[in-house]
């Protein structure tokens, strides 16, 4: 197992180098003028020349790439051209939201997807099954942005006077703030990477408010996450439901289940103890693969629900020609994405020992 993991990690290195090169090239060939994007349309040529010299944008591209690689190797992602702030700071602010949204949506999708899948499989061809599968099929076919736009206006405006009322956008109700963990725990003097980690965790509002017991803020944050999570999680939910159903149906038709039934075990026990566990294998894969869809969906959802997450950061960086941010953020996402895929592979192998780790 360890050998497999190490080998997978090693084989990721050339991929990662390719990713860095690709991102660098893509970022540089985007047409447009980073200076005027950053300083405004009325910036003069003199100001812009100075600006470009400051960010090394006047150097030849290979030189720029070399400088960037050296910095990157030292863990320095550079500073935003537009905001003059370190990319690492921007990541620490923005990435936690996307992680939180993605995990929240994934939990939602998995929980309801699996339940719907089981119910469908057990009541095969019943109206419940047909209904669920119709909804699931519609779910995978609905654009995230249409769903998001409609959810926002329906639950915040049209259902305003009902208990289903939800906040239309944002992370918290205006005026509410979370207390950074460093402040809450009296660690304000802490510096260095540990502090960075702490600030990163602070910006996961659910986690932060949970461990510090700020219940009203926690509940507020949850309420703000529900609609975006539904919007971004519907497609994975539908896929998971369909996969659970078909996989469970397949397993339930196998010999050992028949044996278990023949032994007189109660149906529910058969399904849960014998069927479900074995049916989960493809479902785990689908859950893992859904992460890509979730992140893609997050780009749209974050803009519709006005959430300052990493997806929106990238889109804004692209429109603002903020090369350094585009590079830094994309590379971090690619690394995270590779890691998740590795975890999926490993857990797949873990669940099914028959799979050869090759």
């Amino acid at each position, binding site marked *: 197992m360890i050998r497999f993991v190490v080998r997978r990690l090693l084989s990721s290195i050339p991929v990662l180098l390719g990713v860095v090169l690709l991102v660098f090239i893509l970022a540089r060939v985007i047409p447009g003028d980073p200076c005027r994007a950053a300083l405004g349309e009325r910036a003069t040529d003199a100001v812009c020349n100075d600006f470009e010299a400051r960010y090394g944008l006047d150097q030849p591209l290979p030189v720029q790439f070399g400088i960037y690689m050296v910095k990157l190797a030292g863990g320095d992602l550079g500073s935003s051209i*537009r905001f*003059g702030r370190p990319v690492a700071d921007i990541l620490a602010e923005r990435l936690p939201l996307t992680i939180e949204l993605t995990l929240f949506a994934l939990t939602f999708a998995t929980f309801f997807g699996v339940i719907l899948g089981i119910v469908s499989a057990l009541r095969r061809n019943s109206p419940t099954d047909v209904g669920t599968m119709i909804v699931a099929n519609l779910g995978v076919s609905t654009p995230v942005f249409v769903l998001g736009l409609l959810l926002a206006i329906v639950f915040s405006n049209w259902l305003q006077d009902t208990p289903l009322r939800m906040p239309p956008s944002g992370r918290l109700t205006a005026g509410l703030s979370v207390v950074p963990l460093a402040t809450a725990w009296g660690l304000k003097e802490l510096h260095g990477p540990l502090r960075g980690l702490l600030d990163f965790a602070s910006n996961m509002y659910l986690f932060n408010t949970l461990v510090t017991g700020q219940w009203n803020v926690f509940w507020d944050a949850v309420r703000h996450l529900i609609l975006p999570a539904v919007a971004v999680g519907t497609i994975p939910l539908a896929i998971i439901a369909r996969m659970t159903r078909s996989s469970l149906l397949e397993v339930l038709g196998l010999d050992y289940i028949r044996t278990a039934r023949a032994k007189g075990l109660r149906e529910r026990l058969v399904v849960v103890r014998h069927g479900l566990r074995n049916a989960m294998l493809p479902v785990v894969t689908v859950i893992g693969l859904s992460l890509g869809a979730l992140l893609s969906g997050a780009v749209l959802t974050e803009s519709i629900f006005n959430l300052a997450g990493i997806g929106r950061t990238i889109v804004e960086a692209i429109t603002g020609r903020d090369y350094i941010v585009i590079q830094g953020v994309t590379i971090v996402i690619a690394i995270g994405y590779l890691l998740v895929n590795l975890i999926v592979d490993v857990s797949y192998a873990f669940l099914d020992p028959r799979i050869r780790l090759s």
Partner: protein
Amino acid sequence: MSRSRRWSLLALFATVAIVGSACTPGATTSSPSSPGASQASQPPASQEPFDGTAYPESGEAPCGQAEAPTGFGKYTGNFKKITAQDARTVVFELCNPDVAFLSKIAFTSFAINDTGWLESKIDPNKTENQDIVTQVNGTGPYKIKTWDRGSQIVLEANPNYWGDAPKAQTLVIRWGTEPAQRLTELVAGTVDGIDNVAPEDFATVEGNADLQLKPRQGLNVMYFGMNNHPTVPGFDNSKNPFANEKVRQAIAMGIDRQRITDQFNPPGSEVATHFTPCSIPNGCAGDPWYEFDAAAAKQLLAEAGYPNGFTTTISYRNVTRGYVSNPVGVVQDLQQQLKNNLNITATLDEQESTTFIDNSDAGRLTGLYLLGWGADYPDVTNFLDFHFGTGATAQFGDKFDDITSALTEGAGGSDDASRKPAYERANNAIKQHVPMIPIVHAGSGVAYRADVQDAHASPLGNEAFSVMTPGDRNQFVWMQGAEPGGLYCADESDGESLRVCEQMTEALYSYEIGGTAAVPALAEKCEPNTELTVWTCTLREATFHDGSKLDANDVVLSYAVQWDAKHELHKGRDGSFSYFPGLFGGFLNPPAPEPEG
């Protein structure tokens, strides 16, 4: 820093450091780069004699410099010297008369900062992202509490404000790019006021008893530009239809501007009779624009040698601005009208925003193009000189002597009445030469919850939230289009930042609430000499958020760090300080222009 300037800077630092330390004890120790600082850390004396500074410390700025000194660019600015005569009096000496001086110093970028704050929150050794960008120490009705990046900025009432205490204890600024999204928030009751209601939603807001709409007058202009002599290499200008004045006049007559105004702009927008809006003094001097007359236009086009029309392009960028909320709709309509009325076949050419601006400034757009302008300060020079004056870009091609000479004369006048004849000539010449076709002064709208009292909209986009009472709540939530880039507004240029600064900081003058007239703020008054070249300002008693007292040296330094490009503290979020040269002509010690390239 150049050697020739260093001595004066050192001297300046020695003096301002003394004043700074008197205001904020200990502040000086954090700026080791000011050599005079350490001797000045004695405790503040109650009746310390005022040691007034000046900038430049001795001598004056080289007005109308003919030759650029080595290593620098030519000085093109209009400031000659700023002097703190005594603790309450500041004197601005200008190179040339400036009738719009009060309008300019009222601009948010020229807010006054405390000397100690500037020295401690700007690190001369750091190029950008200074502490002062996020830490604000103004004199205004609100002070900053937290800035949750990406989500909100929370401000709280300043208990020591010299003016009327703010009505709401807390002011929260939020942002969202889509107008409909902002309205959704307002309807949901999660915010109290929103910026820029979509034109299509004016009816929605008016039909909702829980909301109120405040139309915002349009201090802007949207126009269709044409270039009479593009700078594209190899371009044959003899085949350029826009080089022919009759063609430009024909198009000016052949477009139904009322239709564009009605369809794509909210109620309150006005068809442009002149390039400058009428609410700006002398904006509408001279004859109004051509009436729409398709038949006459067609005939004129035939006279010009294009009886069957011609083909061209319409360049634009798909970016919403105060003057255009639906650029795609507008250019599509223009395309149709050109075809229907003049048989001109135009293809649409959407360009990336900054590329588009670069191309237009450099005169590389060969067809028609959609662009506009929003007022920085309410004076006709901000509109006409920027576009048609001697210093304007090549966006319309070759300049017209009768326009430029009229503008130069108008800018030198000392009051509105005496400037009027010049602007009549300028506007009539613009109408005759048609460098562009002004279409609309676009209105926009701000919406509030119905229970917000004293809600208003400002034509300059700087609503004063401190005077608004949000029903029975003690928190006012405002939602605008975007997050501020930074809150050191000397170094900011977008309206979203400026509006937030405006709640916390103050300049010597400010614009009247909901209007454009310059009214005293931190200055009780500023009075010019008869030539309008020397302005003497008397300061009021005011306290910064951190408890420091305002004095004349704060004013001198607040301007000096913007004015002098080589000043140690000429740094902020990115150090561009784009409004200073825009309004006052240029930096002191400007960087030398790059050799061609």
